[in-house]
């Protein structure tokens, strides 16, 4: 029995070396990311430092070093996007799927569903959904371009690492017009810093648009509200109700 106790004690010590004891682990020994999470920042409006404007809360950026290493043509394109953002932002103006990493910092909660073989992320905004295989399978060849990308996950110690590619060139990183091409490759890292906070990092690589990879990072907060539950924000439906309320037009 004392041997059993030492084994248990040993296990507890090992996990304590990496994560605070408040962090629950799943049956397969991984940090338990299950639950509802939300970013509490202004990255959905602008991932870089920005001053407040009507309808835009001010914010410090989430980009490491603040500057985004655009190629010269792309810097011009970003400026053009900014001026057209009221109608051209695929997500804010058109309710389209927000892509990755933008889905994680929309001003809406999302739910992580963690099992040993699959991790799913369900988003309240536009009911976006990612199903992330954890079985070590590679990105399939020949996938069509997608809005949310093809995600493959793995554990590096206590960090969930998700590799995402097969994106189209249609989504923006924010309402300020920061954009990418279909060569986008995102590597996300989810690390519990304690039971209720995830330290989230996304490395962004796109040789058609940027001169080098760059990184953004932010905390994600657990929604501790009693009976917290993902509801529905059916952006497309609401927009149709507005735009087509007097239809038919011909």
């Amino acid at each position, binding site marked *: 029995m004392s041997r059993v106790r030492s084994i248990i004690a040993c296990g507890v010590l090992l996990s304590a070396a990496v994560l605070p004891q408040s962090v629950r682990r799943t049956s397969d020994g991984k940090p338990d990311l299950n639950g509802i999470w939300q970013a509490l920042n202004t990255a959905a409006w602008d991932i870089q430092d920005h001053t407040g404007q009507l309808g835009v809360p001010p914010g410090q950026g989430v980009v490491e070093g603040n500057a985004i290493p655009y190629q010269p043509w792309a810097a011009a394109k970003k400026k053009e996007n900014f001026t057209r953002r009221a109608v051209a932002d695929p997500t804010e103006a058109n309710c389209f799927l927000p892509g990755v990493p933008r889905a994680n910092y929309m001003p809406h909660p999302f739910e992580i569903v963690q099992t040993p073989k699959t991790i799913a992320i369900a988003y309240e905004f536009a009911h976006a959904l990612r199903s992330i295989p954890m079985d070590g399978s590679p990105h399939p060849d020949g996938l069509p371009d997608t809005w949310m990308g093809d995600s493959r996950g793995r554990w590096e110690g206590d960090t969930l690492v998700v590799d995402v590619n097969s994106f189209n060139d249609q989504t923006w990183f924010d309402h300020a017009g920061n954009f990418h091409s279909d060569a986008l490759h995102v590597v996300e890292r989810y690390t519990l810093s304690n039971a209720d906070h995830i330290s989230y990092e996304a490395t962004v690589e796109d040789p058609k648009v940027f001169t080098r990879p760059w990184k953004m990072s932010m905390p994600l907060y657990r929604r501790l509200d009693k009976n917290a539950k993902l509801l529905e924000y059916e952006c497309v439906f609401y927009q149709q109700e507005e*735009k087509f309320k007097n239809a038919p037009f011909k």
Partner: protein
Amino acid sequence: MLLSNDVRVVAVLFAAVVAASGQAQPDLQGMYTRSGVVGLEAQPPENPIDPSGKNPLSVSNRGDGLGPYPGIFGQGGTVLRAGQARQQRRTGIVDPEDRKLPWKPEEDAKRRDFLLHMNPAADLRHVELNARCALPGLFQGEDGNNPYQFLQPPGAVVILYDYNHTSRVIHLDGRPHVGPDIRLFMGDSIGHWEGNTLIVDTTNFNGRIAYSREIPYLSDQLHTVERFTIADANTIDYEVTIDDPVLFTKPWKVAGYFTRVPKGVESLEFACAEGSQTLVNIFGKPPERR
């Protein structure tokens, strides 16, 4: 003394692991296709949506011979899976036995009138919700094609639909339904296990979702009870009780089943609104916003 303490510690830890892992639940995880649920009543209204079968606006004019009235109903579903015999299971309306839905006559009349204004759609209200890329509710996620993935994190059963990237999180922690002022396309689902059967109670619907093309809406008083029963390693039997006191004189039941798909099948992205020109094609372009 010391020994019994140790035993207690081990027992508590073991219970915690089982509870945390969700192993207390029977395991139905995996990827399945659904059969038999989107069916028809025995006496459907005369095809109101596609009278000629040649209407260019018809959502059912798909060129694949599948009109709005597929012939699967009441014949027993069949599914052929590699290495598996053809199986017969209960499908479609199983209560009442004559498969005639217990419509309130005045509500049936309203429904038939509604159907007559759907193609071409008279206005936005008469456009099929699936054509608007809205969440499909519990029934219109598609039979046969787009698969469903069941996951079981601790304390919940989660169903991911391939269809329109929909998901349902069914909490098993004994929480109550959300408040009555919250209305949802997918409703608010809470569940519990009885043996091998997951029972899911859903309320808080928004009065917009359809059951099928012939039942284009259900009321916001809809209350469903679904039973997912693990029949064997590859099959989940499904039964849903539809209680909508606004439209029907009594509840009715539909049966269907989920069959595991071959290994390696993954969901692909079902982007819907992103490329859709449906409403513009039906109604013309809305005036520009100022």
